[in-house]
């Protein structure tokens, strides 16, 4: 499916639409460079390491480590009821992703695996469970 089609069908921007399309199937995609193998996320039109155009979406292992986290005790918007924990996960492939915690109480350094939170009006949101 081309970018144009995914944007028409769903959520995201011109570059991120494939990510959200895959999210519907609970697949976590990262960009990888065909020239230097560098992984990057969020998506860019070329590799930030070597500037090659040869970047493509690949499925990530879904495994990572909690790099940092915070538990929020204040109401910042009607969409979130405190307390809730936001983790910053370093994926095995290198890039970091924010996430909520679907299961367990992680500490920094803990291994986590990808999970998905279904949303009504948007594709599933990547979250993490303690491995």
């Amino acid at each position, binding site marked *: 499916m081309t970018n144009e089609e995914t944007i028409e069908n769903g959520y995201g921007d011109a570059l991120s639409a494939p990510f959200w399309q895959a999210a519907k199937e609970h697949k976590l995609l990262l960009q990888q460079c065909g020239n230097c193998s560098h992984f990057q996320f969020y998506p860019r039109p070329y590799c930030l390491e070597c500037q090659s155009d040869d970047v493509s979406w690949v499925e990530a292992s879904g495994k990572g480590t909690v790099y940092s986290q915070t538990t*929020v005790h204040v109401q*910042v918007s009607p969409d979130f009821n405190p307390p809730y924990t936001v983790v*910053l996960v370093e994926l095995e492939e290198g890039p970091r992703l924010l996430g909520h915690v679907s299961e367990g109480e992680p500490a920094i350094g803990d291994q986590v695996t990808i999970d998905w939170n279904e949303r009504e009006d948007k594709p599933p949101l990547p979250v993490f469970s303690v491995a």
Partner: protein
Amino acid sequence: MGQVNDSPIYIAGVAETPLGEVHDQTELSMVALAAREALDEAGMTLKDVDGIFVNYMGEEGSVQVAEYLGIQPRYADSSDLGGAAFEAFVHHAMNAVSNGRCEVALICYASRQRTRRSRSMAPRGDDDSLTAQFQGAYGLPSPIGHYAMIAARHMHQYGTTSEQLAEIAVAARKWAQKNPKAWKQDPLTIEDVLNSRMISTPLHRDDCCLVTDGGGAIIVTTQERARNAAKKAIRVLGAGESHTHWHISQMPDLTVSAGQVSGREAFGQAGITPADVDVLVPYDSFTITVLMALEDLGFCAKGEGGAFVEGGRLAPGGSLPAMTMGGGLSYNHPGALGLLLLVEAVRQLRWEADGRQIEDAEIAVAHGVGGVFSTSGTVVLARD
């Protein structure tokens, strides 16, 4: 090619806007009042201003402010480096003035975020922005959630404690008690900070800066023009700026801020080391902001900021006086503190800081930090 900045550059005037809760002025009128006061100190008028540097004063901020003041500049800058923009503006003004592109630079700012109740912690970004897709969706409070994650990582990696962070808030309060203009004057202990409400772990309410109205103005000019100043002009020895990220997921190392680069640039240009600094005026948006600045500017090694601040080292009587006006934690935080850091640094070097004056202060550093620990601007000032 010779050194670009070989002609001495000075800050010839500084002023605060009305502070605290301001009901009888607008942001533009506050800026106008501060600009006149700073120009008075410099022995100048609005007619002398040919460069204008403004952040957070609305769309095309320098254009709005210049019109309000009746100025048609030949150099204008509304670069948005968040709260660190004002240290970056000194950097930019230094280059512009030393290259003859303008001669009298007015840097100014005002906010009424307290009176307007305009401060929100809601995540930023339009619905289809990268920020909304990958960050806002998690409800990370802006900016505190980002600083909280940085503090948590620093604690994990280096064993930094909440007590050590609280030392910074206590030091700021002790300085504030010596400044009649400070918003918070009541006593504060480490226990008080630890017992204050948890906002976003590990940061408590008293790890966070105030929300007040305020702002200021400063005048950057040549040595020749600064000779007419009513008060002692203070030399800009060096300045630098940098930024690392917009999204927290993109910050290369959560324990290293852009201050490493801005500090290296500013200290290098000034030809000084941290040991030469008599007064440090760091941006204290949160306690962790100061702790990381101490490391990134080289006052202590990376990871040793916690131990460094223990025993009141930054407080009155300590070996590194910092946040001497009470900082954003206790004096005033009008959304962007960077300009008021410069005002305090200049007053310390003019030896006019009254009850909080650092004796014989000759070198001061103002270190701005903005965004979500994204940006830094460092300015080294000297009494000569």
